[in-house]
């Protein structure tokens, strides 16, 4: 099938950028989405990969026993925090495109002593049943997707009626960046 949206290319760029991050440089970030108290709840190995745009879990008011999907879980900071919040009676599922990130998320959950299922899958084709989730969290993922409408419809499909989505993401003040920026390969992954 022809990939009219260059999905494969976008995914390759995301994989390349996130597979080769300069974690020392992350110390210079001017925006730190997680406060110290929430970072302290994470294993060091997970906190080092906390590159999210925001802290959606802080706004989600998760309750014990809820079922939560972390859509594009990366190395799992939001996944681990959510698993702590919903407790042993809850369920947390993480989905990420990159197997290496899923492996980090699983290891982080194990180090934190929480249960979470982590699945390699595309955010636009979720391996979850309809209306099976109470809360969808996502952190910096919508802007990376070449099929945003499909991703958001999938988030809606897996949520129960009345369930909530809490998304952190970058937005732009103007509709389009200059063409030179739009065409820069790294601009599709950062």
């Amino acid at each position, binding site marked *: 099938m022809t990939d009219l949206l260059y999905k494969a290319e*976008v995914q390759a760029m995301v994989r390349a*950028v*996130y597979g080769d*991050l*300069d*974690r020392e*440089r*992350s110390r*210079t*970030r*001017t*925006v730190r*989405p997680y406060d110290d108290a929430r970072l302290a709840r994470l294993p060091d190995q997970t906190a080092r990969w906390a*590159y999210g*745009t*925001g*802290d*959606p879990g802080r*706004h*989600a008011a998760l309750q014990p026993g809820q079922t939560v999907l972390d859509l594009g879980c990366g190395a799992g900071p939001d996944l681990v925090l959510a698993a702590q919040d919903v407790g042993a009676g809850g369920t947390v599922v993480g989905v990420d495109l990159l197997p290496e990130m899923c492996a980090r998320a699983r290891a982080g959950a194990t180090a934190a002593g929480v249960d979470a299922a982590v699945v390699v899958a595309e955010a636009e084709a979720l391996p979850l049943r309809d209306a099976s989730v109470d809360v969808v969290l996502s952190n910096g993922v*919508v*802007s*990376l*997707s*070449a099929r*945003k*409408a499909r991703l*958001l*419809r999938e*988030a*809606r*499909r897996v*949520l*129960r*009626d*009345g*369930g*909530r*989505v*809490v*998304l*952190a*993401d*970058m*937005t*732009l*003040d*103007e*509709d389009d*960046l*200059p063409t*030179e*920026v*739009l065409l*820069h390969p*790294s*601009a*599709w*992954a*950062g």
Partner: protein
Amino acid sequence: MSGALTERAFVENLVRAGFTAVQVRERVPYGLDDLAAEPTIPGDLVSLMRRVLPPRLQTRVGARLVLEAVAGPEPRVSS
């Protein structure tokens, strides 16, 4: 950056996907200096943006948002 939406388009996409009661829970503006400190934004991209972005966008390219929305009733297919 290339895939980022405006806040208005983001909200419209959520509504089209079947969400209601969309709220912005957090809005933190960012500029090029903030992007320069991001590990996912390479230096050459920041340099390019410094050259080509109009001055009004240099200090504020956009915002980091946290949005919350409620799953509205799923549309039912009538036969």
